[in-house]
Every structure is written in structure tokens, then in C-alpha cells.
């Protein structure tokens, strides 16, 4: 009896809705699998794809974004078998669900009507800041990534994320799960490779609005802050989320850092 040969997977980056190799042609290897080692050019391509997707994603209704994030949770749940750590998948799915529910509630929590002392209807509402760079922690590779990604998307932003350097495959597998969900092309872009190289290229990109960093590397955090100052980017540094609670207890802060509060004044009467 001839034993059947397995069909191995070629891992790819996810940029602008397409599964692609690194433009540099470079790759690294982990656990017997090759995976792309993204370049600075891939970072630029990903930011460009994200920027293109930003406006239409922000323009969708909060209800629709919530449904798309719910659908992403469904897709992740059903691809549970892909991942080695089932508990981590469970937590990541729950985190996606939690933030799917935030899309139409953060306005009530972060914004409101301002009782100004003049004849105006004045209100302040959170709006997405735009393109957000995410630096995922090494571990847990899936939950740590989803904990950073989900609030960014729930608030109406698009993301370019740098995956766990030590264990990039769960992040690349997430791309395949999201790829068959309803997340529009370019809303999430996932890059594997060397964190130092990619995070600096991302942090220094002038068309990026914010950086959310959970790598837990103090030196890198300092460098990212310095790069952020060039264009006054919003930044948040935190440790890796290792549980559902870690990822959701501070939901309001996570949402707040990637939103811009806009105050509008509309006249009442003449």
C-alpha cells in the first residue's frame, strides 16, 4: 500500500486581501514550515492597502461592522482544527465576539451630547483614527494578536499587524480564517518576519495614525515612541494579553486610544 503524501501548506503574507509571498523573496523556517520574511517594502504595501480600505470600512454602519466581526469569530471557531492550542482559539473567538458587540456601543460610552451654554446642539462622537499598526507579542501568538486587533477594528480602523516572531504560523492561519469571512480586503493586513525590522518600518511610516504595541520589549517601545513623534502618532504599549479578561477588562482604554473624539456644533434656531 502506498502511503498518501500530505499536501503541505505554503504560508503567505496577507496584504490587501491577497495571499502573497514577500516581495523580497525571503523566507524563514519554523517547525519544519517555511514562512515569508516580510520586508520594509511589504510594510509599505500593506499600509497603502490599509489606507485604501480605511474610508469604506469606517463608512460602514456600526451594525454592519459588528456583524462582520461576528462572522470573523464564526470563521475562527470553525477553523479551530488548524490551531494547536484549542483553549487559545476559544479565548480569541470570545474576544472577537466581545468587540463585535462594541461597534455600536462605544459612541454611547466615549461620546455624548454636550450641554453647552449657547443655542447649539453640540455632541462629541468617537471616530476611527485611521490606519493602526499592531505589533503582536511572541506569545500567545493568536490570542495576543486578536486582543490587539479586535478593538482596533471595532472602533472602525484598519490594521497592519506584525505577527509573533517566534510563532508566526497561528497568525498566518488566522489570515486564512479571516480570508473566508466577510472582512473586506485591506482592512486587516498580516505580516510575518523579523519584528525589529518590520516594527521600525511600520512605526516610521508617515501615513500611519497609531501604533498599538504588545511586544513587551522596552527598547523597541522607546524606538517606536520616537518614530511616532515624527507625525504625532497615538501610541499604546502593553504586555501580551493571555486571557479573555486581559483582552477585555480594559476595553474602553483599548478603544479610546484608536479613536478621535469629534465635537460638532450645529445651530439651534436661526
Amino acid at each position, binding site marked *: 500500500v502506498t502511503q498518501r503524501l500530505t499536501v503541505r501548506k505554503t504560508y503567505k503574507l496577507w496584504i490587501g486581501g491577497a495571499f502573497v509571498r514577500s516581495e523580497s523573496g525571503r523566507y524563514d523556517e519554523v517547525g519544519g514550515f517555511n514562512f515569508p520574511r516580510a520586508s520594509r517594502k511589504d510594510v509599505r504595501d500593506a499600509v497603502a492597502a490599509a489606507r485604501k480600505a480605511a474610508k469604506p470600512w469606517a463608512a460602514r454602519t456600526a451594525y454592519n461592522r459588528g456583524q462582520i466581526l461576528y462572522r470573523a469569530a464564526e470563521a475562527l471557531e470553525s477553523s479551530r482544527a488548524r490551531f494547536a492550542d484549542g483553549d487559545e482559539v476559544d479565548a480569541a473567538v470570545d474576544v472577537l465576539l466581545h468587540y463585535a458587540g462594541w461597534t455600536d456601543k462605544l459612541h454611547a*460610552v*466615549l461620546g*455624548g451630547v*454636550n*450641554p*453647552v*451654554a*449657547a443655542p*447649539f446642539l*453640540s455632541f*462629541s462622537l468617537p*471616530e476611527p*483614527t485611521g490606519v493602526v499598526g499592531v505589533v503582536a507579542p511572541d506569545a500567545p501568538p493568536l490570542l495576543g494578536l486578536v486582543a490587539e486587533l479586535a478593538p482596533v477594528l471595532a472602533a472602525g480602523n484598519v490594521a497592519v499587524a506584525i505577527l509573533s516572531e517566534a510563532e508566526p504560523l497561528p497568525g498566518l492561519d488566522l489570515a486564512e480564517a479571516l480570508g473566508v469571512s466577510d472582512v473586506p480586503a485591506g482592512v486587516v493586513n498580516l505580516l510575518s518576519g523579523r519584528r525589529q525590522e518590520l516594527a521600525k518600518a511600520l512605526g516610521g511610516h508617515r501615513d500611519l*495614525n497609531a501604533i498599538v504595541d504588545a511586544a513587551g520589549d*522596552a*527598547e523597541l*517601545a*522607546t*524606538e*517606536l*515612541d*520616537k518614530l*511616532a*513623534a*515624527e*507625525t*504625532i502618532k*497615538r501610541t499604546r*504599549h502593553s504586555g501580551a494579553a493571555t486571557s479573555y479578561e486581559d483582552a477585555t*477588562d*480594559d476595553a*474602553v*482604554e483599548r478603544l*479610546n486610544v484608536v479613536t*478621535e*473624539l*469629534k*465635537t*460638532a*456644533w*450645529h*445651530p439651534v434656531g436661526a
Partner: protein
Amino acid sequence: MTASPETRTRIVWDYAPAPESADHIRLKDRYGLFVDGEFKDPAGGRYEPTINPATEEPIAEIAWAGSGDIESAVESARTAQPKWASLKPLERAKYLFRVARLIQERSRELAVVETMDGGKPLRESRDVDIPLAAAHFFHYAGWADKLRYGVNAREVAPLGVVGQIVPWNFPLLMAAWKLAPALACGNTAILKPAETTPLTALLLAEICQEAEVPRGVVAILPGDGATGAALVRAPGIDKVAFTGSTAVGRDIQSALAGTGTSLTLELGGKSANIVFEDAALDQAVEGIVNGIFFNQGHVCCAGSRLLIQESVRDEVIAKLWQRMRLLRVGDPLDKNTDVGAINSAEQLERIEVLVAAGESEGATRRTIECELPDRGYWFAPTLFTDVSPAHRIAVEEIFGPVVSVLTFRTQAEAIEKANNSRYGLAAGIWTDKGAKAFEVASALQAGVVWQNTYNHFDPTAAFGGYKESGFGREGGPAGLRPYLQVIR
């Protein structure tokens, strides 16, 4: 027969001078640093005069803080902070209510001093700066015992000692925007007023004494950029709040990289004021004037890029020019003055450089003819037409009474042009169509959008920028968030 606008401007509106008296003002010759509840000489002994930009006369000698002074202020603030934070919240509120009341009581004095020190028309310091400063203290006083509702948290705690730097355009008002929320949240604060306008912050220090605010809760350390740079880098500062230029904001953000010090920035702007063809044009012209000539254009959210729909371009410019020629430029203490003195010689030079760049790049300049006083720093209201979006005067913040006119054909083009800026602080929309106003307001990348008004502020309404105009908000519950940590 009604007079045409042209006829009306030919009438000479001769106002008798109406100067506000300054004889009730009792300023000291010298003001020390306000540290640990007392006025003290600076360790380095440095005193610098603060001058009246309308006369170039010195008003008083002001102590400038050095690094030793910052150190002792931090020490005093650190000592005071736990006690201040553990006061029963309503008691903390009472101090701030007292401050609000004392500002109201001394409002005339504060308005006159603000105008003398900074050059802004008395009409504005009296009707805008001082009442709003009191309102901010009153608003945030009321938050002191309701903090967790403001940020939707189960439990909150102050950050500790905050270092705050304010600009010279709204000296007392910006001090109030900074101090009121910081103190309400249980922080203690070290505030550096701008080098050209320290006086009302020092009068606020006197008010803190009068209100019996505990020692060390508020420190006022005048000085220049070097003092500010030292303050934000001082050990023992847990949070920095800065209002000023984007260049300095960038330096501060970079200096704090990796320190974990909390930061909020309220920076520059090049805000678009958009006039649609269906606007009430006379009302819009008033709004344009208020948007750019209020406080000599020394306003971070000034409507300095005027976007006019092509179909009404000529009409709006004609009306605007008529209106501009009626602006009264001169003695800031005169109650009829519309446009006062430029804040400093340095600022006047910056305005002149950018205006010269506007001319050399090919824009058409019109400056109103008016008599300017012999002494002091003045710049007459100026209008640029034939401006291209790439001109420096369409891109860079002038921070003076200079408006650049651009045009658009469609709503989509207006939005695109308005958003085509590295800044995103504010915007104005002039239209009487409600649905359109809401649509445009939501498409603009700006922290504040005013429909059929401009430069309107309120302590309950968040203020702050998108993009390179900074991050963090001041005003309303959003203004508490930068001064609190959430405890879980």
C-alpha cells in the same frame, strides 16, 4: 432709500476712544515663583520683564524658574499629592468652586491684566477668556466627586504630579483648561505659563492662596522654552500636558519616548472654514471674521484656510473685504477695538515672513489701510486670494490675522481640500442645509466642527485635534481621561 454696502463704508464711523481704566489694577513690581503655596525668589535669581506688546513698556519683573526650582516644585507637589487625592472628593471640589468664584469676582482686573500682558482686545478678554476660565473651574469642580462616571470605570485614581505648559494666546483660559481637570482628578500640578504672558497665571496663584488651596497642590513656574523643556524631563513628573506648536509637541513626545510618562498634546492647526453657496452669506462673513481675526488670529483653531464655493466666491470676497475695512485695529484696552496687538516681536516677525512668502509665491495680498500706533507690535488684517493649495500660506500655520482664500466647486472637493492637511484641529461649515451640514461635518478630519459659527468654546464640549494637531481632549468628561488611571 437704503444705502449700498459701498456707500455705508464711505461713512466715517468715528468712535470716541473708550479705554478701560487700568487705575484699579494693583500689580506688584516683581513676581516670584509660586512654589509650595508661596511666592519665592528663583534659585538662580533670574528676573525678566514682561512687556505690554501694545506699548513695549515693561509691566513687571517676573521670576524665571531653573532646574533647581523645578526640583523643589516637584518635591512639594509630590508631598502634597497623596493628601490632596485622599481629601473627601466634595471637599476637593469646594476648593475649585472657590477658585471659580474668585475668578468671577476679580474678572475685571484679570481681563485688564490679560489685555495688558498679551495685547488681546479687552472685549475678548472680558467676554471670552475670563468667563470661560471661571466656567472651566466650575465645571470640573463638579466632576471631582463623580470621576468614575466620567470615564465609565468602577474605580479611578489620579496619575500623580502633572507638568503643564500653556501658550501665550489665551494665558488664563489655557491655565484653567489644564489645572481644573488635573486638580479635580486628585493630581497636583506644576504649570509653566508662556514667557510673554505670565501675569494672569501669577494672579491665579494669588487666587489659589486666597482660596486656601493646600500648599504644593498648584505651582506656577514662569520661564521660557528652556524651563518648559526641563519641566517635561524632570524626574517625578507622571504626566505632561502641552499646548503649543507642533514642532515643540514633537520634541516633547520624542523626549518622553519609553518613559511611560502619560502625555497629551494640543498643537497647531490650519483649519478650513468652508462657505457653501447656500449659506447665509452676511452671517458667514461675520463668522469668517470671527474665525480668523479673533485674538489677532493667535488661535490654534483659527479658520485660516477659507474655502469658498466658486459660485459665490466674488460676492463673499467683496463682502468680506468691506467688513474687514471696518475692523478697528489699535489700543487693546479700548472697548471698541476689534484687533489688538501682536503678542510679541518674534511672532510679528513670523507673520511677516509667511506673508512675504505668500506674496513671493504669487498670491494676491490685500491688507486693510488703518492707522497703527507708533509703538508696539501690529499687523493689519490681511486677505490673500489666488492661493494655491501648495502655497506656504495655505499649508503652514501663520498664527496671525491673515486669511488665505481657496475655492471649490463640489462638496466632495471641499471635503478633500479641507482634509488635505497634516493638521486636523477644527473646521467651519457655512450652510443652511441641515442634512448637508451633518454629512460634511462627519467627513471632516477635525476634532471640532462648527456649523454656522466659529471659535465657540464650552467647558462641557471636548476640544482637541486629529493627526498632527495632537492627541487627547480637553473639556467635558473626555477631558478627565488624560488625568486618571482606571483601577480594575
